[in-house]
């Protein structure tokens, strides 16, 4: 075990964290603004990955175009979901909303199986990013760097949007006080739609850029949604920096866990999540005042 190995593992964790961050950020954002816990988030991530496969491999579209195309397609699906389904249940008890998103999980899962079958698929990394950067003994796979940069870009982009633009500030205000914002004349339903679509877009993007990392398969949806929940909870619902921090922790815990204690590695995210929920339910960087008895 050399320093190079450790750094290599660290980078792998960072890349994993990057993808996880994108998914969790979308989930957290949607919950923060629209107050819906989108169980279907993992399923949409999976759809993003499969769409990328369709564009890049089946249709031969260049990778650089496939990724945004796939993300946009997923966003369109999200739009349809919000307008056709979620709008009907806004006033209803939380349970109804949870169940609706859960129904979508099941439907999307089988639709994907119908369209793509149960076999493992893979998306190759684009030639530009297929190699690695070498620093002495340390190998930086270029694709990992790409993911990390994308994650950072999205983090900064989100932050800038929320804090520097008019629409973003309105959204932050809406999170704080809905009635007030409605009074100000901004059309609330479309605000929700926009927020939902944005969150789903980032989710699809995660699926797209995460596709070349490992295989694409059915079951990704179930696996990742729990991790996404864990990330959002550990970081704190509605806190973007918190989500980034949590993604980092969980990504690295997984990477090093797999290395040192493979038996526990799979359980680590849940252990961390359970620990956070027990000790500090509002997350590392979230705000107290919601969800404790």
């Amino acid at each position, binding site marked *: 075990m050399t320093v190079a190995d450790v750094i290599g593992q660290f980078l792998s964790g960072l890349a994993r964290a990057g993808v996880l961050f994108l998914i969790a950020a979308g989930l957290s954002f949607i919950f923060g603004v629209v107050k819906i816990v989108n169980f279907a988030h993992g399923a949409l991530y999976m759809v993003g990955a499969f769409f990328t496969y369709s564009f890049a491999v089946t249709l031969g579209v260049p990778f650089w175009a496939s990724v945004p195309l796939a993300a946009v397609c997923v966003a369109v699906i999200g739009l349809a979901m919000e307008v056709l389904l979620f709008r009907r249940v806004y006033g209803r008890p939380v349970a109804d909303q949870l169940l609706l998103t859960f129904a979508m999980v099941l*439907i999307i899962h089988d*639709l994907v199986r119908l369209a793509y079958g149960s076999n493992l698929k893979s998306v190759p990394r684009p030639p530009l990013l297929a190699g690695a950067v070498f620093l002495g003994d340390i190998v930086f796979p270029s694709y990992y760097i790409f993911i990390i940069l994308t994650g950072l870009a999205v983090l900064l982009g989100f932050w800038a949007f929320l804090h520097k633009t008019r629409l973003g500030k309105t959204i932050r205000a809406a999170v704080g006080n809905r009635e007030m914002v409605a009074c100000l004349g901004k059309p609330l339903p479309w605000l929700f739609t926009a927020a939902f679509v944005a969150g789903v877009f980032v989710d699809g993007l995660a699926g797209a850029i995460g596709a070349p990392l490992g295989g694409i398969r059915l079951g990704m949806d179930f696996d990742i949604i729990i991790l996404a929940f864990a990330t959002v909870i550990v970081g704190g619902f509605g806190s973007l920096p918190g989500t980034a921090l949590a993604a980092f922790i969980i990504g690295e815990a997984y990477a090093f866990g797999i290395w040192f204690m493979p038996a526990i590695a799979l359980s680590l995210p849940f*252990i961390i*999540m359970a620990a956070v929920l027990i000790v500090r*339910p509002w997350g590392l960087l979230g705000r107290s005042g919601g969800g404790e*008895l």
Partner: protein
Amino acid sequence: MKRWSLVALAVVALALPQVAEPIVVHTAIEILIMALFAMSFNLLFDGAGLLTFGHGCYYGVGAYTAALLMTEVGMPMFPAVIGAMVMAGLAALVFGYFCVRLTGVYFSILTLAFAQLMFSVFQQSYTLTGGDLGILDIQPPAFLVAVNSYYYFTLLVVGVSLWLLWRIIHSPFGRTLHASRDSVVRTQFIGINVRQYRLAAFVIAGVFAGLAGALFAPFNRAVAPFLVSWVKSSDPVLMTLLGGAGTFWGPVVGAAVFTTLHAVAIGYTTYWLLLMGGILLLGVLFLPGGILGFLEERFRGIAAARATRLTEARGASPNASAD
């Protein structure tokens, strides 16, 4: 449900093995077990306002405990079932202690987290739980091997359990849980330590879920980690919502419909999740009260209309006094 329909149900249930094919009886046993599972879930959901996405955890713990006790320890079935209930109750006590400190979405997610944790544990421990393969060749006692016998046995156990659950729901304890569902704050202010009562409900629900699992293990002859997962946990949620969470018999109706649908659909299509999801979707959007809720509304409407017609008829009678 009215008296007569209960009696009719009992008659049908008792007569079933005499008139139906073994495969039907087999499905009926499944329905009974699922009904108990769903009922225990609804004690928390409709009874206390707690939506748990991890109830499969206690079902699975019950199933595995029974399986292990019967195969490894060689215990006869009845004490094994008791042991299963105890273990499930313990698991519910430990996990529930943490879950009831949270409300709403956080509660739901933590229940899910614990279920998934158990799933990982069960999946990883080859020596104890057989890992991915699970535990196989669980044999019920000789006198229960026949499908009909197992059916009557399950009918008895589930029947008694349902009666117990009915008593609990209608007891002062059950009332208090209902109150906490309507308003946690108000319940605290009438002197109730809501957390404690919720934990009690959680444990009771866990015990009954464990019982259901323990009935399943010898019936299915095998258990696998899937039983503990959060996907299995969604079964009682779907069944209860399908049948109607706001009624006592809702989960039973839901279990019957769901299980029968599954048994039939499996023959025609492998896209079972799509079907389930679709039904759940339509159910949430258009039938928020579930099947029984919908029927209740209908009958209430009919009864109200009939009452109106009667009063109108009386009013038009020539013997009515003038005002």
